[in-house]
């Protein structure tokens, strides 16, 4: 039949597997190299840049969580700032009210709290689709931070909670500046979480999540519990955001509702799209863009001495314009630039024929 010859079969490559290294070992190795690079970088830059470095770190984790949710299961969350809020306040409350706990326990509990919030949201979300899901998660982002106003004594009202975390080992005090130490802590946690995420998404679970995203009926027929898979993705994603929030609180020494506006949630979503949906590398490009575009445009407005109305909103506007520009030129985001260019430069082959008789059933 002619259709059989439309596409030349791929060369019969053997079924390969990177034998020897387990996925864990491979991803750990990469993470250790990355951490070493971060440590080196942190030694040569000033304290201010170290804070920025750490900021990229926790945004990277938040965006990575979002990309697992959207890229792998096709669920959209306009409310990931709310999970960052949960993580940040969990850390803040524990530091303030249970100062005896070591910081890593605080972070672990922040992960648990945000995971719980994520699972609940996911359970509700599994019954919602498209615009309804987006609306529900947006409501979360708008509503949750205002809880601080209801309990001003406990949660500090709109000023939030301020505190200091004494996490530096006694041996390092005096020799390592605190911002450098903070950058190390943030990146160590972020890279550890990314190793787990990479293991998950490259393996069988990632495949199951993608199946749910592409066709729920077929996924169910393959033995996948679709609802459970969606809730699981929300949980994982919220844990990432919660850890990011906890790390932000650690870095800034405060947790305040003003840091978790709906604009934050939208920025995270935009960073994911900008970087390239579904790829952990894309999350890195997105986080870099989020931090450095913001910083760059703040400096720009500063230099132009514009009024506060303009200077408060200009960074977001610039960010939006860059997003639109990149997505128009490279629909697969920054991470897809190479692939997009390659397909554009290659002469187009005979487009494959597909039948229109492809109705969604059941």
């Amino acid at each position, binding site marked *: 039949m002619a259709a059989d010859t439309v596409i030349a079969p791929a060369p019969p490559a053997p079924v390969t597997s990177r034998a020897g290294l387990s996925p864990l070992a491979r991803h750990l190795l990469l993470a250790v190299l990355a951490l070493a690079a971060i440590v080196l970088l942190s030694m040569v830059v000033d304290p201010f840049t170290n804070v920025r470095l750490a900021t990229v770190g926790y945004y990277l984790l938040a965006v990575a969580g979002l990309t697992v949710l959207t890229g792998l299961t096709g669920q959209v969350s306009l409310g990931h700032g709310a999970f960052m809020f949960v993580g940040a306040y969990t850390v803040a409350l524990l530091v303030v009210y249970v100062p005896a706990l070591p910081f890593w326990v605080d972070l672990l509990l922040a992960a648990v709290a945000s995971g719980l919030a994520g699972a609940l949201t996911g359970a509700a979300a599994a019954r919602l689709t498209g615009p309804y899901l987006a609306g529900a998660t947006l409501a979360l982002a708008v509503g949750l931070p205002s809880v601080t106003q209801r309990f001003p004594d406990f949660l500090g009202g709109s000023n939030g909670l301020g505190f200091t975390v004494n996490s530096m080992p006694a041996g390092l005090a005096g020799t390592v500046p605190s911002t450098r130490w903070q950058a190390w802590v943030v990146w160590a946690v972020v890279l550890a979480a990314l190793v787990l995420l990479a*293991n998950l998404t490259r393996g069988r679970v990632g495949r199951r999540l993608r*199946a749910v995203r592409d066709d729920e009926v077929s996924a169910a027929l393959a033995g*996948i519990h679709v609802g459970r898979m969606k809730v699981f993705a929300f949980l994982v994603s919220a844990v990432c955001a919660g850890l990011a929030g906890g790390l932000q609180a650690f870095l800034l020494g405060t947790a305040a509702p003003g840091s978790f506006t709906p604009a934050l949630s939208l920025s995270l979503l935009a960073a994911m799209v900008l970087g390239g949906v579904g790829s952990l590398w894309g999350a890195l490009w997105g986080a870099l863009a989020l931090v450095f575009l913001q910083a760059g445009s703040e400096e720009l407005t500063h230099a132009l001495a514009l009024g506060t109305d303009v200077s408060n909103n200009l960074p977001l506007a610039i960010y939006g314009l860059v997003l639109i520009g990149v997505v128009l030129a490279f629909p697969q985001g920054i991470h897809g630039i190479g692939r997009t260019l390659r397909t554009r430069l290659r002469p187009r082959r005979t487009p494959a024929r597909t039948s229109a008789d492809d109705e969604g059933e059941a």
Partner: protein
Amino acid sequence: MAEPPLLRVSDVTVRFGGLTALDRVSFTAGHGEVLGVIGPNGAGKTTLFNVVCGFQQAQEGSLRWRGQVLRGHSPHRLAALGITRTLQGLGLFGHCTVLDNVMIGADRHARTGGLAGFFGLRRTAREDRALRERAMAVLADLGIDGHRDALPGALPYGLAKRVALARALVAEPDLLLLDEPAGGLSEQDMEDLGSRVRHLAESMAVVLVEHHMDLVMKVCDRVVVLDFGRVIADGTPAQVQADPAVTEAYLGAVPRA
């Protein structure tokens, strides 16, 4: 005592509002047998599959699998029971490669839990390799292993249909439900499909919903005819073809002189 049939559908009734899509439908499907289910458009064939798969709850009647009544039946349990299905269209995972599509179908063979996935242990890598080998074997058997890295949308329809079949077969089912597998196929592909279905019936039961009568009559051991949700005939292809009620159902729309 004789072994019960693999699948026994008893008096299943499904109504959509005022429309009765299935009306006290009963039949059995046994190991080593190809059962055809035919009927005019809208007769209830797909609805019947949806009931067997748990997508559609029957208002009345029951399903038995290996003699056990299926209660609280839901689609994601099917594969573990040993039942797989292809859909009337393609239902492929459009953004996953051909190989991934088939590996997802093989998922019932995997054992490691979700936690192991987080830690990427050697065990999970080994299991993944085993799934891949199973998938590649089925792809090779269907002659499409060369397309393993393609996305389904890039394949011609006939090949994409084969990927859908591979995904169902790799689970090694005891009962295979095929909803119009020949739809959109060329003569040659249909020929291949026919002999493949015959071959498959040596190791499982196959239920075949099809509009191509020559294919049905050639490969089926038994044929159930549905019309407006009722079973109007159940017998060998020859018996069914000779049944006046069947001719009536198919020609019923044509006004007689």
